[in-house]
């Protein structure tokens, strides 16, 4: 009667520490250029070595420029981060995937894409969206910087076992409803705090029918539900998706691994601390209107009126409406926009780019809009170019970037200007997240692409 999470936990619990926390073994540690310099200098200061450099990978993604023809100094402020990540990786014997590598990309995109993450494995990463790898049944562990140093030195994280939650998604999705719409709906339905202290498992027919890349989008935003990690039981589609990838086990190891993965599911009699379900058949595409990921509305919907909200929430809603410069009771569709960003670990895999290209093909970005596509990895970029997707985007007036985090968090300075309204395929719409005074609407790649063409948020169903 074990849950999927129990099975992974039990297979990694090394022992209990003196303070009562469990030491959970980290199979793969993927670090990046924003945290690595700090972590390396803390290691040096304390005279510690990296316990398993062979299980550690460093990536440059947060700080790199994503403009075409980039170099390490395209963004001068980023240069020391990139230099110190490279120097530290060399010093500690860690494999580096820098901008000169064909395997470079956003941590959570490349981890599954290169089969660094595997079903049933634990993957630590100093970024809150480490849970993305849950889409292939790997346990993503988001860490802070001090914790990175702990993982580097001990190959474990010290954790109290979280409570467990299952969210069963019933029904079938309409063809224009994507994993992004689904997770926005779930967050809007239950709130951005509902999974606090829980490991979340997604289950049910809707999840089983999702393509592997969509499952990653779904798990990616467990963070915005307040949970630290999310999982989906791996099935044959995951095994097929992983076979032959760069770091996938080979030969007899592959057979043994695939056999091992087939037991990775919650037992029929497994008990969850919270067991929730919702029917998704009537869902339409969704978008956020406010400054909390739970401020969600269907594309045919109206911007909410705080007067109809519970008293305790009214202040928050007013603040969000003020920041977003929106009027309650108005349709969200029709809101004029200034920018579109298609990218990030939420929605910049090949299938995301294909969905967006399908919408823009043969059309042109509105004259008032600046739009860009930033592939999640250099591999995705190459695959998209092989399919000619870059031509579709460039001909339509999009900028076609190099792989990286870019405008998701804007830590490298790639951000919007004050007062701009952006439809973004990222995962956070906090005030100022994409630049001071920038208003962010989170949506799927297809919805973002349609907005770029129209120059406003569009209800695609209404226009078809």
């Amino acid at each position, binding site marked *: 009667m074990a849950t999927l999470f129990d099975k992974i936990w039990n297979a990694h619990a090394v022992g209990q*520490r003196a303070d*009562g926390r469990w030491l959970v073994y980290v199979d793969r540690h993927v670090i990046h250029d924003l945290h690595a310099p700090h972590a390396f200098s803390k290691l040096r200061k304390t005279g510690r070595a990296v316990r398993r450099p062979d299980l550690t990978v460093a990536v440059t993604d947060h700080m790199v420029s994503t403009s075409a023809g980039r170099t390490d100094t395209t963004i001068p402020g980023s240069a020391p981060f990139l230099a110190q990540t490279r120097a530290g990786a060399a010093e500690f014997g860690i494999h580096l995937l820098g901008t000169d590598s064909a395997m470079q990309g956003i941590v959570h995109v490349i981890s599954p894409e290169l089969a660094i993450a595997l079903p049933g494995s634990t993957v630590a990463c100093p970024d809150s969206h480490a849970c993305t790898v849950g889409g292939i049944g790997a346990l993503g562990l988001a860490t802070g910087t001090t914790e990175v140093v702990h993982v580097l030195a001990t190959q474990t994280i010290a954790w109290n076992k979280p409570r467990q939650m299952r969210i069963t998604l019933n029904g079938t999705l309409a063809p224009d409803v994507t994993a992004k719409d689904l997770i926005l709906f779930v967050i809007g339905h239950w709130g951005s705090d509902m999974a*606090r202290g829980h490991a979340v498992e997604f289950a049910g027919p809707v999840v089983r029918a999702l393509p592997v890349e969509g499952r990653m989008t779904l798990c990616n935003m467990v963070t915005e539900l307040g949970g630290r990690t999310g999982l989906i039981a791996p099935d044959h589609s995951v095994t097929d998706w992983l076979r032959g990838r760069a770091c996938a086990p080979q030969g007899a190891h592959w057979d043994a691994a695939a056999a091992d993965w087939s037991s990775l599911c919650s037992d029929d009699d497994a008990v969850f601390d919270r067991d929730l379900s919702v029917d998704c058949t009537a869902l339409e595409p969704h978008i956020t209107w406010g400054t909390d990921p739970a401020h969600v509305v269907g594309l045919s919907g109206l911007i909410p009126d705080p007067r109809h909200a519970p008293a305790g929430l009214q202040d928050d809603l007013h603040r969000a409406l003020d920041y977003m410069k929106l009027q309650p009771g108005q349709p969200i569709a029709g809101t004029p926009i200034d920018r579109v960003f298609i990218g990030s670990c939420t929605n910049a895999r090949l299938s995301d780019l294909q969905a967006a290209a399908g919408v823009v093909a043969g059309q042109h970005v509105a004259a008032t809009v600046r739009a860009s596509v930033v592939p999640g990895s250099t591999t995705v970029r190459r695959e998209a170019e092989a399919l000619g997707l870059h031509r579709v985007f460039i001909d339509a007036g999009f900028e076609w970037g190099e792989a990286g985090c870019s405008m998701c968090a804007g*830590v490298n300075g790639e951000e919007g200007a004050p007062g701009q309204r952006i439809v973004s395929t990222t995962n*956070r719409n*906090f005030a100022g997240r994409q630049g*001071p005074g920038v208003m962010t609407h989170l949506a799927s790649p297809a919805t973002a692409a349609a907005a770029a063409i129209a120059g406003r948020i569009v209800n695609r169903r209404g226009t078809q």
Partner: protein
Amino acid sequence: MQRFLRLHAPAALLDRDNIDTDQILPAAFMRGISPDYAAGLFGLWRRDPAFVLNRPGWTNAAILVSGTNFGCGSTREHACWALEEFGIRVLIAGSFGEVFRDNCVRNGILPIIAAPEALETLRQLLRSSASPVQLDVDLPAQRVTAPDFTMDFTCPPADKIALLEGLDEIGMTLLNATALSQWEAQERDRRPWRQSLEMPE
């Protein structure tokens, strides 16, 4: 890490819920390799001269009092460094973002979860005072006091020990080093594909 025992200091009120780490330390202040994090604390809000931490008497606040879900959002530990470098040693809120809370303890900041009524009383006390209110925070006694105000709090024993002693967490973990090496050796037999990672050149 800095130890924490007791503190007597002015408290500042951030009178709202859901303050995320993008507000505590906006991304723009993470761009330097060793920037002045203290200058970035609530960087966008501090542009407003009326913001509490800009007001005379509150510029040396060492305690922040806020609503629920403080420190939600991004796991950036830089937010804790900004608090710590500014001189904030205690946070009192209804609840905290999970990773943020752990990060606070690791940086010698005491995160106190206050019960709803006590928090409301405290918020009211700070709201209605024209001058800074000094709070006494006593970790061994697990108590916050001010004239006419007392609030007991709980602190997980592991966090309490870590804060009181300024513990080195890695050292604590490596007390289990033998078990760790044994586990790795067994895992190499059980699931060799997880104990190796072959990167193609």
